[in-house]
């Protein structure tokens, strides 16, 4: 009887192929395919209904989609810059501490230890217009006597969301920048002091260039994080009220699972992923440039 014999290398690679196929390739191909169909979760047979690039064209012309897209970019820009500045400040201060620094470093990590869902609930409570801590505090201090609609007004809700994001993730920047501070050679810093630099100039011309690679690594990590922001926003405002805080993924999530229009959701998802890719490529370019200028690898 004839038995098919596969070459050994193929046999050895087979488990890896099978796993990759199951968890990456098939879902990827399937979702990409479904973005060209009128697939609805509630009517499985629609997955065969090929409609070409209709979903993509629809997304391109959808004002809600672009509003969410723009808001995500805005959130990314504001949150990342705030986190970078606060993280840098924190790291610089913690680096000066001589006693109890280990404890401080651990405490700095605390916000990252909570589930974003819980952080969302906590900030939803803090910013609640009736029973929230913030309004209570403001009223008790006599700063205002009205209930500020933190999570209702579009701009205020955006500020509230930024606050929650910054609170959870500033430590990513702080920890990475602190690591950078520890890695800076002391000689150039001393040379700068002798060369006539004030402390600010030493920071500006010597310390900061050394920190830039660390800052860009943090930026790259966090840009991916924020570009897929969902949990905190979903809990705090669910993109509302009336889409005023809608982000890409709250919109996509609702379209796919609530409205059951999975084909359209997938199409928007693929466009959204471009955003992540663009930011990642951008920050990695910056990282490479910063490293090259420091003579760290080519």
């Amino acid at each position, binding site marked *: 009887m004839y038995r098919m014999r596969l070459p050994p290398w193929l046999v050895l690679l087979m488990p890896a192929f099978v796993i990759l196929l199951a968890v990456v390739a098939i879902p990827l191909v399937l979702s990409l395919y479904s973005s060209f169909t009128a697939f609805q979760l509630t009517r499985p047979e629609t997955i065969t209904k090929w409609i070409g690039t209709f979903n993509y064209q629809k997304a391109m012309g959808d004002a809600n989609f672009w509003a969410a897209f723009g808001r995500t970019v805005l959130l990314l820009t504001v949150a990342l810059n705030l986190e970078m500045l606060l993280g840098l400040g924190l790291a610089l201060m913690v680096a000066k501490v001589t006693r109890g620094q280990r404890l401080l470093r651990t405490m700095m990590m605390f916000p990252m230890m909570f589930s974003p869902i819980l952080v969302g609930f906590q900030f939803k409570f803090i910013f609640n217009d009736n029973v929230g801590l913030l309004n209570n505090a403001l009223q008790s201090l006599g700063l205002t006597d009205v209930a500020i609609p933190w999570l209702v007004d579009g701009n205020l809700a955006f500020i509230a969301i930024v606050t929650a994001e910054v609170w959870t993730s500033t430590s990513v920047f702080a920890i990475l920048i602190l690591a950078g501070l520890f890695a800076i050679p002391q000689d150039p810093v001393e040379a700068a002091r002798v*060369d006539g630099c004030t402390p600010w100039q030493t920071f500006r011309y010597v310390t900061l260039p050394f920190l830039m690679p660390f800052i860009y690594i943090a930026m790259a990590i966090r840009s991916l994080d924020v570009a897929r922001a969902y949990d905190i926003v979903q809990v705090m405002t669910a993109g509302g009220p009336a889409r005023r805080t809608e982000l890409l993924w709250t919109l996509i999530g609702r379209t796919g699972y609530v409205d059951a229009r999975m084909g359209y959701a997938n199409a928007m998802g693929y466009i959204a992923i471009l955003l992540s890719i663009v930011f990642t490529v951008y920050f990695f370019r910056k990282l490479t440039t910063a490293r090259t200028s420091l003579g760290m690898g080519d």
Partner: protein
Amino acid sequence: MADVVLRNVVKNYGAVPVVHAINLDIAHGEFVVLVGPSGCGKSTTLRMIAGLEAISGGTVQIGERVVNDLPPRDRNISMVFQNYALYPHMSVRENLGFSLHIAKRSRADIEKAVAEAAEILSLTPLLDRKPGQLSGGQRQRVAMGRAIVRHPDVFLFDEPLSNLDAKLRTQMRVEIKRLHQKVGTTIIYVTHDQIEAMTLADRIVIMRDGHIVQIGTPLDVFERPVNAFVATFIGSPPMNLLPATVTGGALRLSDGTPIPLPPGLSAREGQAVHFGVRADNIMPEGHAMPPTAHMTHVEMPVTLTEPLGTETLLFGTLSGTEVQAKMLNPRPVRTGEVLRFGIALDKCHLFDAETGASLRV
């Protein structure tokens, strides 16, 4: 240019004193080398002059000013560091011009000063490179260039050559000396290498355990070391020290070998001493040692030879101590061969066995 004066300068790290009330006067234009074994406080002293370490006591004066409380940038000094300390993200040109840029000098001024410094140190073809693309010797030249563009009052060098290989070190040593001749600025130079100290210095300051042991010209400290430490630290190979006792107006080595008392030395009867003789002053007979009235002879078996080309170092054992002698016009010597050595007594030293102090009068 300025003179530098240290008065009772003290440095403590917490309760641990590392520099003990040292006094030092450096004339302007002078090349002074601080030398000593690691941990002797020489780098700390230099860093106090630079302002990179706080001064725990006493005063440091540069020119007319007491600079104790001035930050480094207000002391008008420049410093060359052991690890070059270049700014890796700046080109050679930017490294050289950085201090002038910080001082807000005009672009034309900066370019002129940079070109001048680059010319002096032959860095002109490297101006657009980054430090990462330079060799060790080139980096060290950039570090020196960065120091000279500012025309500071004082140059401080902190072991600048210790990261270079032996050949480059010799080369850079000459360059540093030439630089000093050219610019004439006061230089304070720290090293643990006594050869660097000897070859570069107008005056050597020998430090040990946070104290200054001796200050003098290179020949001074070589020929008239104040104690056994300086005698063995300065000069290569180190001075041979043989335990001996003064008996009946002569020296007796520990195994009883008699040696006449060298001239010009004062020793009490019965005093325990160390008899010091450099390899240059103990040579096998017939080896062209400058003739002197004060010669004595010993016999010693040769245990090891180190041929150096123009001369050969002979290791022997005298009275249980290893002794290094020199042989000019080398000829092959078998190990174990017993040779008769002449000792030039007028070039020899005596040190008190307990305090190590020289017994020269």
